[in-house]
């Protein structure tokens, strides 16, 4: 199942986020669940897609999730840069959620400029670790590897490249083998014995 980045953004919008509504309406009975009742000034948890829709109409203020703050992000960044392993990200779709919130309402997030930089740093750190892991994988010629705590967005970022390039490598190896076998057919037994199988 290969998802594009836009589809992942869509799926990410199911995450719950807190908002401060500016209006009053009673409970809404939606297919995916009930939302509400909304009262002015009382925070309420809603799926991200509702929050973004309301915020676009200027009907609420989004309360930044606890992990999208400077101190929290700094801790994550520190861990990522120091440790060779991937840490468990506070949200499975941290990149999508951050992008959507910053696109629509950066004024709701305090110190938004710094947080943007930190999120990008964390992303870069993780991607570079991933690339190093892939390089090692190809070098060793391994057939499987276990990586914990990758988010779907990161997987989606390497997905177009990774299996495709492995396939290319596989094809090269196969052609080399076939070529060698072919030429070995005309060579002595010693040489044939020394050929890799």
């Amino acid at each position, binding site marked *: 199942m290969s998802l594009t980045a836009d589809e992942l953004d869509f799926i990410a919008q199911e995450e719950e986020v807190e908002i401060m509504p*500016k*209006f009053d309406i009673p409970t809404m009975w939606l297919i995916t669940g009930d939302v509400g009742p909304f009262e002015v000034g009382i925070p309420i948890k809603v799926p991200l897609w509702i929050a973004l829709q309301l915020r676009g*109409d*200027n*009907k609420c203020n989004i309360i930044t999730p606890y992990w999208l703050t400077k101190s929290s992000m700094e801790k994550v960044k520190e861990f990522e840069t120091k440790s060779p392993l991937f840490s468990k990200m506070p949200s499975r779709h941290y990149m999508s959620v951050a992008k959507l919130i*910053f696109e629509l309402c*950066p*004024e709701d*997030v*305090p*110190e*938004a*400029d710094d947080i*943007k930089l930190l999120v990008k740093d964390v992303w870069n750190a993780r991607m570079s670790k991933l690339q190093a892991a892939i390089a090692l994988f190809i070098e060793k010629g391994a057939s499987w590897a276990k990586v914990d705590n990758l988010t779907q967005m990161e997987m989606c970022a390497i997905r177009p490249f990774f299996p495709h390039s492995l396939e290319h490598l596989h094809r090269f190896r196969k052609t080399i083998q076939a070529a060698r076998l072919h030429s070995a057919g005309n060579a002595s037994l010693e040489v044939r014995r020394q050929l890799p199988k």
Partner: protein
Amino acid sequence: MFDVRDMVNGQWLLVEEEAVNCIPPTSAKMLVEHYRRDFIERIVGHRLIIITNQDVDAVCTVKILTTLFKTEGIQYILLSCSGLTELKEKYDEYNSQSDRCLLVNCGGTIDVLDLLGNPPREKLFFILDYHRPLNILNYYNATGQVVIISVLESEENIPEIDEIFREEPPDSSEEEDDHDDDEALDANGMNERQRRKTERRAQRQLYTTWVKKREHLLFTYREHSYYSRPSALYGLEIAWGMSRDDMESVWSAIVSLTDSLVLGRLPRPKYSEYASTVNDHILRISNANQLPRDCLKIRFERDLFLFLYRHWSVYDSLKTTPYVVSTLKTWSQDGHRKLKQMLAHLGLPLSEVKQKYANMSLDLRRQLVEMFSSQVVVENYKLPDLVFGSFVAEIGFRPKFNALDVQLATLALLEEPDPNKTEEERFLLAVQGLDVRNFEKGGIEKAKGMMKQVNNQVQMMVEMKLVQEVGPFLFVQLTDSMIDFNYFKRPAGIPLLANFLQHAGIRAGKKGWRQSPWLIMIPYDQEYFVAVGVQPGAFEQADKNIFPEVFRCIKGKMGEDVVADWFDGWAILVKNQKRQVFADLLLALSE
């Protein structure tokens, strides 16, 4: 002598001014007290017809209100008109679609219900107009159909209700053939009927004195026309009342406020007062946190009162800004020299100043405000108002832009003399052009053209000595060369030209000209010219204008040859051939 318009509880209502008066309406004052309750809640669920005047303030108000309506889910039909006839036309065309109508900057000074043909009871009209004085029939209207969105200011002096409406006492002649039965004599020796007769006569006399007083009251009330708080500020307050205000709405309100300042609709102290209220809004919305780069940030700071200087070179801007040109008289060689002298005095090298602003050295750019507000400039060159409190917006990493430039660009978009675009199209383009994030430079280029044209006209006026003293007036007849490329055909932009002409004329002419009212005649097209009446001293401070009343009398006498269609009464269209008749009438009225 009175027309019947409606019957309320079996009572007749007043229509004509000269008519006899009647019982006052039961629900007298129709002002909006609470924006949500009295305005928004009465439009929710209905489609709203918005009819606007075509000026910058209307553009800004429409921008704010339509954004609000979109988020509230209120459907609206946006129409714009340039005068009374168009207002009626548009209303007739669309009124079947809705029974809620919002009039922006039109209809406040005229009897709306009368003009629109006495619409049925369900139709409500909300008037958001900055023209004053308000028509008393809009203010006191019995059917409750007209609601004015405004806060009355102290100087408005609307006459009290019993000073205008009163029941007419029964005619003494009517009861001549009264019952003859009660002939009984009372204590005074007069019989019943005679006593009643004297009573009635006394009542009648009181009534006639009251009518005279009323006429005088109405005359003084309507004599002076002026402008009040820009409608966009009310728009901002409505959005705030619904908690839907944001920086973009504040910016639109700021542009409208700057427009009122530049076109001389508001005196400086009032501008400062409104500017500080807007500043409060800004502080409230940006709530102390450091706003991130991507957001619209608006700051209230001291800035140069030079038109378009950020998009031009400072030198070009100095040569075209009306204030500087008139004070230094830069149309002459002498004045030009004075300008260069001033720049030298301030330490601004000519080569730098003639470069485009963006290419000027950063140091000089930073010092500009300080330099131009220094003692040197203020005292030696008599330019105290070169620096004023203005609003500057920045977004992302794009160059800053200030409210003055945006206002000029919007005005240029509205008034652009493009034969391919109708006035409505231009209005809609101007509304779109006000979008802060996609601010297009096209408007700025047009504004430059507009300013150049203004300067050409002033230069021509001074060189060709087009100012004529006739009686108490100063007549200025502008040449026909501007007919095809005229930015100043309508009241939205005319004050820019008119005030500039007045200031320049006074500086180029005699000192005594300061006290006289000016009459400027701008060619409109092959048949008509625009007659603009300017009060003495209008360029210095916004003053009350008596010309609307004067022109109304002239229209009464000249009939078909005058078209007094615009909502701003101080500008009318007169037929070219009737120029002399018009001038004569004006002189006769001034006696």
